[in-house]
Structure formats: structure tokens, C-alpha cells
């Protein structure tokens, strides 16, 4: 039985700059030049003000864990990787991303500070994972 493939993003003209950034080690989000707010995921109009004047910018790559789960039962091609940690991270620019938390030897918690680390999946896809840099006070 062949190993089932992991989900691969279908690049389009919204998403290509983001995924190409990942390959180059750059975390790209958008900023609206009309209302000055940051936007993620990338799109052709600003969801805050309907402007189409959006530009890609490089995020600092720093954020805070908003929530997370440790997956003990994965599906399909991910089932052999358990346990692993998926999180929603609030970037300092004010947008939220889904990601995987890595290098968290002492575990992870909500409020922990994290930084982006680009990681190549076994099938070659480069994903923006995050690793802890400072535990939240609890």
C-alpha cells in the first residue's frame, strides 16, 4: 500500500507570493494601503475596507499562541506523526495563522511567545512552523 499524499496547496495568484516566500524563508502577509491594516490569508480585496490596494510585506515572524491542540489521533498521511501540536498564532502585526509548533521541549501554552521557523515537509513543501522563544507568565 502506498503512503497517502499530504495535502498540497494549489498555488493561485493570491497565494503564490506567500508560498514562494516560504521557500525563500520569508513570511509574507498583506497590508492594505487604504486602511493600513494587515491581512492574512492573502486576497484581492481588503476584508476591512473593500480596497483592492493590497501589498505583500514581510512579517517579523514573531507572535503569541492564541490557542493550540496536541493531536493524538491524526488522519491519513498524518497518523504516524502523532503526537504533534497545531496552533493558532497571533502575529505581532495583528493577523492570525494556523501553524505547527515545533521544538517545544517543555510543552507549549497559550500566551507563549513564538517565532517562525521554516520547515521542509517530507514531500518537499516548505511550511511556516513556529517554535517557542518565551514562556508566558502563568
Amino acid at each position: 500500500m502506498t503512503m497517502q499524499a499530504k495535502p498540497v496547496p494549489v498555488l493561485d495568484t493570491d497565494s503564490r507570493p506567500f508560498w514562494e516566500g516560504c521557500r525563500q524563508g520569508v513570511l509574507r502577509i498583506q497590508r492594505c494601503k487604504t486602511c493600513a491594516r494587515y491581512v492574512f490569508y492573502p486576497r484581492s480585496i481588503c476584508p476591512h475596507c473593500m480596497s483592492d490596494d493590497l501589498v505583500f510585506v514581510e512579517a517579523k515572524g514573531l507572535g503569541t499562541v492564541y490557542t493550540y491542540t496536541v493531536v493524538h489521533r491524526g488522519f491519513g498521511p498524518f497518523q504516524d506523526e502523532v503526537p504533534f501540536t497545531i496552533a493558532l498564532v497571533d502575529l505581532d502585526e495583528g493577523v492570525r495563522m494556523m501553524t505547527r509548533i515545533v521544538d517545544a521541549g517543555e510543552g507549549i501554552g497559550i500566551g507563549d511567545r513564538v517565532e517562525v521557523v521554516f520547515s521542509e515537509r517530507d514531500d518537499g513543501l516548505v511550511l511556516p512552523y513556529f517554535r517557542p522563544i518565551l514562556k508566558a507568565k502563568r
Partner: protein
Amino acid sequence: MRRDRIAAIVGIAESDIGVTPDKTVLQLQAQAAVRALTDAGLHTRDVQALFCAGAWTTWTNLMLAEYLGIQPIYTDSTNIGGSSFEAHVGHAVAGIQAGLFEVALIVYGSTQRSQRLRGKVPGEVSLTEQYEAPFGLPVPVGAYAMAAMRHMYEYGTRPEQLAEVAVAARQWAMQNPRAFARDPLSVEDVLASRMICEPLHLYDCCLVTDGGGAIVVTSERVARQCRHKPIWVLGHAETHTHHTLLSMPDVTSTGAAVTGPRAMAMAGIRHDDVDVAEIYDSFTITVIVTLEALGFCQQGEGGAFVSGGRIAPGGSFPMNTNGGGLSYCHPGMYGIFLLIEAALQLRGDAGMRQVPNAQIALVHGTGVQLSSSATVVLGRD
């Protein structure tokens, strides 16, 4: 309570449920549809409006109408996940109120268990879904787990309180001979069950079954001629707040905060008028965040609210009286079963699990990743 009467649920039925390996998804829906129409004293040739939602084909209404021999003059395949059927009731009432039709049939069916459709991971992800699936989060359970984790962090909600929801559901199911899971279940059992996605254990998660259901909604004029006393639709509302989880503004607060007040205002009722509640329980956390958003308790107090047997048989807040998606059945999009059970309770036909003198029911569906919400308020004369 509002006094005017616009539309009513006059027919309710379920197909075979549980494990139905010899049935197709169309057979289950046909079985439920015919039973519901028969329950109402109506016929497929009376159906003017068809409502259906499902993942079994892109062309739900075309295929189902053709199979049943129905040519609708109004058709609606709104699919917002498990809450679709609560939305369909609202749309049916609106269409009846506009004078577009008088008889609506709402149908659902799924063979997800027998066909092993759960837990499939797509090979490619396009458009806005490409920013989540590559990381490997199992959906929907992982999304609900992240909501539960945040709820525990913000409000101190405990795993024991999540487990209370599953235990109450099981106690209701033990009074329902049709329920899929009827073995006794304790809080300790839930906490000792296999961890799926922290903090959700196996018994925090809904069942995976086959099954189908159907509802007939008609105008007041037709309803007065049907076999059962009408179960009036007093209020309805719907919304959706996001699709992908990363776009949910606050994972502990759902669109029920919008639909609950709107539906209850339309019905002219207050929280303490509700005699029985049917609240979508895809996961234990779903119930807690929904009860809070609907305003049955304060934000953050849902864990305490569901504890101490309040939502169990004999408690002061009868809820999910058939055993819910956690213990009755859950064929993927459970919302139709919430409506059927609410109508059954208001008819007074719920047998052992009947809530005495139930006059007003609140039904709330939640779909996808806490994404969609739809509330229906039902009442009897």
C-alpha cells in the same frame, strides 16, 4: 409568545439509522421523505418546495427531486454544514410568508459510516483552505479542540465539565430505545477514554453513523388539515462568521450570539419560556459555547451551567433529549435530527423521555468549524 401563525412543522420522520450498509444515500432520504409526508398525511405530489443539503453530490436537489418524482417550484440547497436544516426551516417560512408555496419538504441522508467517508485527507487544497490543511489538523475535531483549549484558558473550564455534556447525553440516550450508544457512561469514563485532540477525549466527540431524516413544513392553511397538531415555527435566524478557523474572531464565541436573540425576539419569548432545548453537540465544547452565546448563561459560565445534572434527565434544563449527536446518532450533518426531536417533544410523543407539558422548544444548529449558526423556535397551541 407571538400570536400570529405563518408556518408549521406537520410531518417528521427518520430513515433507518445507525449502520445501514445495504442502503444508498438516496434510499435513506426517500425512506425518510415518504415517512415524513405520510406522517403529515401528504404525498410527494403535494411537495412544492424542496430543501436538501449534503456532501454526497454537488447536485443534491436535482438528484433527489428526480429520484422522488418531484418537480419543485422552489428549490434551495443551502449548505452551511450541520446547521443547514435549521436555516432551511427559516427559508421555508420566508417562502410561505411571501406566498411562493405552501408545502415544503426538507431532507437529509448520509451513509458516511458504511462508506467510511470520515477522516479523509485531500491530496490538494485550493483557494482559502490551503492555509490550514497542510499542517495536518484533523477536522473538525481539531478545530473544536482548539476552541475548548482557549475556553479552558480564559474561563477555567475543566475537562470534567466538558464530560458532563457527554454523560447527560448518554443518560438521555439510555431512555431512547433507538439510540446508537446506550451503555452507561460516567465522567470518569469520558476522562479515561482515548485522547483524540487535547483536551477532547473520544467520548467528547460525536458518533459516526449512517442515517437520514425529513421534515414537512406547510402554511397555516395546510397545517390545519394535516394529521398531527401543528408545531408552529415562531422564530428563526441564521448567520455564519467564518469558514476557516483562523478567521474566527473569537473561538469561544459563536454566531449563536446573533441568531439566538434574533430568533427569540421574533418568537416573542424569553430564555425561561424554553421548555426543551435541542443544541447541536458535535463535541462537548460545542454545547458549552452555544449555551453561552445563546444567553442561557454568561460567557465563560457554560461549564458550570451544564454540571450537576442540569441538562440530564430530571434536570432543570432538558436538552438533547434523544441522546444527541454524542449518543443518539450523527450521520455527518445532524441538524435535521434536532428539529425532529424538538417537534416530537412538542407533540408529546417522546415516550419515556418526554419532557412534561413541553410547549416551547429552542433548536440550535452549528456547522463546520463553529462557522455557521441557525436557531429555530418552535411552539404548539
